[in-house]
């Protein structure tokens, strides 16, 4: 179904759809977290720790971070393509952003699995 639109055959649709799908994942996660906070009302470190510790919650949070970084990568890429006309400068800036996002992903995974 939608999966084939995320392949090389659809280079434009792939980027556009990835941005929308990652936005949907983030929106669902935010609703989920707000609901959990309303239900459990964690007021101290132990309560927060208990909330964040289950494996399923860590996995879901990890999926959220992956979506966030995909979304950010696509958004920044669009901005660079629109406003940075020097191709060398654009490539360097994109590499910086790519490296930063990978570091953020590793960092967030590290935090998640050390709770």
């Amino acid at each position: 179904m939608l999966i084939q639109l995320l392949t090389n055959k659809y280079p434009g649709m792939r980027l556009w759809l990835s941005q929308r799908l990652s936005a949907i994942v983030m929106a669902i996660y935010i609703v989920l977290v707000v609901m959990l906070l309303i239900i459990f009302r964690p007021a101290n470190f132990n309560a927060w720790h208990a909330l964040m510790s289950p494996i399923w919650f860590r996995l879901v949070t990890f999926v959220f971070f992956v979506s966030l970084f995909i979304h950010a990568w696509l958004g920044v890429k669009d901005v660079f393509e629109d406003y940075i006309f020097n191709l060398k400068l654009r490539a360097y800036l994109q590499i910086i952003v790519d490296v930063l996002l990978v570091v953020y992903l590793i960092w967030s995974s590290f935090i998640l699995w050390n709770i």
Partner: protein
Amino acid sequence: MVNQIKFSIYRYNPDTDKKPYMQDYAISLRDEDHMLLDALIRIKEHDETLSMRKSCREGVCGSDAMNINGKNGLACITKLSDLEQPIVLRPMPGLPVIRDLVVDMTQFFENYNSVKPYLINNDPPPETERLQSPADRAKLDGLYECILCGACTTACPSFWWHPDKFVGPAGLLQANRFIMDSRDQATEERLENLEDPYRLYRCHNIMNCVEVCPKKLNPNAAIANIKDVKIARARETKIAKKSIPIKSL
């Protein structure tokens, strides 16, 4: 009754001017002058060096599109009474200026031509005409009325940044007009033609095109529809693929 109106108009003659400048005018109108184009014609009576395009003077030909107080529009259907003074007139942004308010629309029409804005149907032509049901014909409403004035495309920042890559709202409206046409047989090719990351997907939905269209059309909705059609066809393909073995049984 004499009514005087102030203007500030972009002037540029590449043969004599090193760079563009704004020229002020104060012009007396006659009772029958209601539209911006009427006032421009009065100005031309005093200063015939001012260049602009005009033809039908009733919002049909799209010749006199220009930037009016910062917003693209047609001079012939813009009421003088709706405009703040001094009325600032500039050529449409994003296209090379030939002279004064006249822009070179070559890129605009190249983009328009790139979507093959004509019916593609390989069946032998019938004796009279290719018929459509009223429901199919209704799908073209809001798409076929475009007069190609260029107001939408030249108001679009994505076109300013990528004029040779992004088709622009006017071209995409026409692409959708033929994608939606029940008589057209080239839907797949048309969708493929818009598949690279720039031609269609550079639209960031800021809707300048919708705001400025003098015919009150909605290119943004047309662009969204093309994406919807693409997704719907991908789903159909999947269903068709699934159904093949069942049929072969």
